[in-house]
């Protein structure tokens, strides 16, 4: 079973090959093939999961990829608890989203190519999680980056899509450089990049090198997972089709960073500083993401920042080391369910609303789209941590573990996680209220392309995956966390889950505190957006959203003084930081390179005498430098 586990990768890879190379001949049945390959992998994964014991990792070497001198890179797969969990997540959620895409992309002339890219993504992602060396991981890492890049730019006629794809690519490359450097460092100090050899030899190398490797790996993880300071590409990536947002930019690819750190647990276990930086990055990002999530009216961007924030939770968890690896993975899994469900719900809404994304143009959709509303509602309840749904178990576990730290760390990390839970309740409630409740604002307006709105429930091929994901959102958390089922299962791969003894807050209090804070956020949103809407005048023209926003935000003096103004400022500041600071840095870098390129280009005059001059200059420099090195 394990020996032929390469079939897991081979199915979708073959599908991608057939779909991309087959051309128009495969148009008729391409989408079915695309689904079939992923389902085949999923079934294989299930069989593997139930037929095998994962007490220890089993490496299978497929062939020797780069053998040169001391360097030995084998292309092999590692089947252990961690990777098999990811295989199930990727192929399971992937299969659902493939099926959903049949309906969602039914109007697209290039649907076959879309499925080809999706299959390519699934194959790359499986290589990423199944590889048994960091170089194999890097192969999958680049593969998913490429697929993500191609899919973000799917709507090629929109310049924003092209820009977003470019931005995603650039920021990911920054992370990739970090990962590549970490791999080179491993090779330098350990002489191998295989997991087994690296984890065996990591203890013998200088502590500074361990920390450097850990930080470089973190840089790679930040790039892929949209963590501070490389988070800005992820919201822009929502320019891609919604199934892509659900699969790649919510459920699987962006969590690769968390996987990387959990996989490198033996390295992080040795470096306290490295773990601390991971935790800080996670805590900062989860606050940043949730605050910015309050500011957007674009339903997908809100969900994207929510993703940034939720991955922040996972990073925070894995940064806690043995206290949190299993918790981070657990949250990753439940998040995979409910966030994918939320995105598919958002996609279903957009599908019904002429691809409109502005929530202020929605409203009162619950009666028009009951199934979407129900599944979305369950996902919503899961993400805000409604008691006994998925998010409640996994997020609270993380907050508990954060408060379980000693001293200032417990207060800071726990506080940040708790606060973000409240803000999550706020922006998610706002999203649901604006979309599904209140007046049916879309009756009075037309969509951006001038059509009337005729919302309708999506076809079964789309709602069925949403229902399945909703079931997962409800039950997965309890199933994974209660009785430490996941933690025990993962123990051979990432070590047993540690329980802290000297936390700053007792364990019993935290869950209820979290529920309380979340409820506060929900209530605040209800006051601002749910209760007040009847008092809002019916808007007369298209420009109403602006005025309505102002009335909503400034209508209640108490809210204004106590909550709204500070949070507004915080929101503005966070948005500013995001747009100017980070985006500015990236765009500025690109502009600087472009400008520098333009200036340097002038040296290439086309005159041979000026070329000769530059050669002469180079010669003087080289000879003078050589002589100076020798005689100085």
């Amino acid at each position, binding site marked *: 079973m394990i020996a032929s586990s390469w079939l897991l990768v081979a199915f979708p890879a073959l599908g991608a090959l057939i779909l991309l190379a087959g051309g128009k001949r495969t148009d008729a049945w391409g989408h079915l093939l695309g689904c079939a390959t992923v389902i085949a992998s999923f079934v294989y994964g299930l069989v593997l999961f139930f037929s095998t014991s994962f007490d220890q990792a089993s490496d299978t070497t497929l062939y020797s990829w780069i053998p040169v001198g001391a360097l030995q890179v084998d292309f092999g797969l590692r089947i252990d608890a961690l990777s098999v969990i990811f295989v199930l997540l990727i192929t399971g959620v992937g299969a659902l989203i493939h099926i959903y895409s049949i309906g969602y992309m039914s109007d697209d002339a290039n649907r076959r190519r879309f499925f080809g890219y999706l299959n390519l993504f699934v194959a790359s992602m499986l290589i990423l999680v199944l590889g048994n060396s960091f170089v194999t991981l890097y192969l999958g890492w680049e593969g998913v980056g490429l697929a993500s890049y191609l899919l973000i730019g799917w709507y090629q006629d929109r310049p924003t*899509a092209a820009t977003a794809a470019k931005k995603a690519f650039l920021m990911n490359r920054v992370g990739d450089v970090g990962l590549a450097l970490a791999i080179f460092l491993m090779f330098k100090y350990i002489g191998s990049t295989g997991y087994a050899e690296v984890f065996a030899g990591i203890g013998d190398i200088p502590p500074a090198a361990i920390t450097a490797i850990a930080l470089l790996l973190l840089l790679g993880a930040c790039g892929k997972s949209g963590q501070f300071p490389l988070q800005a590409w992820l919201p822009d990536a929502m320019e891609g089709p919604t199934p892509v947002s659900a699969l790649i930019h919510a459920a699987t690819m962006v969590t690769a960073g968390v996987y990387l750190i959990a996989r490198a647990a033996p390295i992080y276990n040795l470096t306290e500083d490295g773990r601390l930086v991971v935790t800080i990055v996670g805590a900062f990002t989860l606050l940043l993401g949730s605050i910015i999530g309050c500011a957007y009216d674009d339903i997908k961007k809100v969900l994207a920042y929510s993703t940034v924030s939720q991955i922040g939770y996972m990073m925070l968890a894995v940064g806690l080391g043995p206290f949190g690896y299993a918790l981070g993975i657990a949250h990753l899994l439940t998040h995979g369910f409910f966030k994918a469900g939320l995105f598919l719900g958002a996609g279903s809404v957009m599908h019904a609303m002429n691809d409109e994304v502005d929530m202020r143009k929605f409203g009162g959709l619950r009666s028009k789209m009951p199934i979407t509303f129900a599944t979305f509602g369950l996902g919503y309840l899961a993400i805000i941590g409604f008691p006994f749904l998925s998010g409640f178990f996994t997020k609270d576990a993380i907050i508990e573990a954060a408060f379980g730290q000693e001293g200032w760390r417990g207060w800071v990390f726990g506080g940040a996680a708790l606060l973000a839970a409240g803000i999550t309740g706020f922006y998610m409630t706002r999203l649901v209220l604006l979309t599904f409740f209140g007046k049916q604002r879309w009756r009075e307006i037309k969509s951006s392309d001038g059509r009337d709105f005729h919302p309708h429930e999506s076809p079964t091929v789309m709602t069925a995956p949403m229902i399945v994901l909703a079931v997962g959102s409800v039950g997965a958390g309890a199933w994974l966390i209660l009785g430490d089922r996941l933690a025990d299962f993962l123990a051979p791969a990432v070590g047993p889950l540690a329980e802290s003894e000297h936390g700053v807050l007792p364990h019993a209090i935290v869950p209820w505190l979290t529920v309380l804070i979340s409820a506060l956020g929900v209530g605040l949103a209800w006051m601002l957006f749910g209760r007040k809407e009847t008092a809002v005048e019916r808007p007369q023209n298209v420009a109403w959203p602006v005025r309505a926003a102002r009335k909503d935000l400034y209508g209640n003096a108490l809210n204004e003084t106590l909550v709204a103004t500070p949070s507004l400022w915080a929101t503005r500041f966070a948005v500013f930081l995001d747009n100017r600071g980070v985006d500015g840095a990236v765009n500025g870098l690109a502009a600087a390179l472009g400008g520098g390129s333009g200036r340097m280009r002038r040296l290439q005059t086309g005159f041979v005498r000026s070329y000769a001059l530059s050669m002469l200059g180079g010669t003087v420099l080289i000879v003078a430098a050589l002589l100076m090195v020798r005689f100085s």
Partner: protein
Amino acid sequence: MNVFLAQQADRIELPAIDYAAILPMLIILGAACIGVLFEAFLPKHQRWPGQVVLTLLAIAAAGVALGAYVGGSPAEGTTTLSGTLSIDRPALFLWGTLLALALGAVLLIADRSIEPGGAFVAQAGIAPGTVQDRAQVGSTGMQTEVFPLALFALGGMMAFCSANDLLTMFIALEVLSLPLYLMCGLARRRRLLSQEAAVKYFLLGAFASAFFLYGLALLYGYAGSVKLADIANATAGTDRSDTLLFAGLGLLMVGLLFKGSVGPFHTWTPDVYQGAPTPVTAFMAACTKVAAFGGMLRVLTVAFESTSWEWRGVLWGVAIVSMLIGAVLGLTQTDVKRMIAYSSIAHAGFLLIGTMALTEDGLSGTLFYLLAYGFTTLAAFGVISLVRDSTGEATHLSAWAGLAKRSPLLAAVFTFLLLALAGIPLTSGFVGKFVVFSAALSDGMAPLVVIALVFSAVAAFFYLRVVVLMYFSEPAADGPTVSVPGAFTTAAITLGVAVTLLLGVLPAFALDWAGAGGFAIS
């Protein structure tokens, strides 16, 4: 007079010649001479088939001779012809690489299906723009002298890679350069641009050769010999002034770096790549790079290893400048041939990193990188020659917009090649970068590797820009057409793509070959 008579009396001993070892090179040079005779004695209509058959046969025969020799050759290599040629494992690997690349390039040169008569002008002597020139545009003739010229260049490159003294190296340098200068000026379309490229290449090449020669003279003054081994011995003794050594080394490197199109000696590269006929560009880009870095590896390893502490810092700077120029200037290029030219400058920087390492891993990594890069760039230029409009090749990037819609296969192939140039895993480019960088890292060049990674990230951006352009733009209404390539071009592109993929997936055998042994010293 008596002394003279006495001299004539004692016979000159002919140096020992290991014919089996140098047979591949002799076949190539001999075939080039036969090609010249073909030009003189064959009627015009028989020249093209005759030359093509001769050239391909010669390359195949040289390959066979090489294969036959490698099996029984001594592992530590051997020198022959009084030590002027060193036939060792790196030299044999480079010969194999050169022969394989030249096979692809000759296939591109021989192709006449894309354009009637091929990419070469019917009569180069006719001044561009004249009535006769307009008349010959439609003719199906070509200057079949290109084939012997290519063989001479190839022979020069092979001699260059195995030259064990600087004088032989200089002559080989000229033998490989002179035919290239000529071939650059023989384009059928845009002849003025082509001739301008040839003149520029010639002038700057002569300039660089002068530096090489001056450096050679200074090194001779230092060591009293032009043999690499003697120079190495001289650096071991300390009683001589190092000034001559380092001034000579600097000037010598200028000549070598020029051939490898390493910045800041790269200035000819974009203009010449753009102006030369595309098959010649492919030949130059692939083979000249191999020869130049092969020579550089030998010179630095054999002659200057003991002084590496002094010159390495300087070459660090050169490598950084080269990567900077290639990566940054590539960003704003609008012509796809120029873009690949800047990419080759950036790659020259990466290659220089491996060349400097002077370890076994560095040697084998650089050799592997050369092999990988050569085939990728060969196939890339093959693809470029297929995208055409009414005026010939449509090399402006705007013409490539939406190409995936017109020709998905071509766009997919070019995307793959660009990904290989960018160094994405499962392509040969990744493995090449990986082995070179890890060799450099283990030789203590960590900062340089970091810089190289950053620049390769920057460079990846402009490759991806072309991919985006091909896939995500609407094709222009009057855009170019994609020619259906004939058997020759198809074979060349297939060869390049197959090797790029093969070396990305199964690099083990090539790495084994590249790491089979070091340089033979004496």
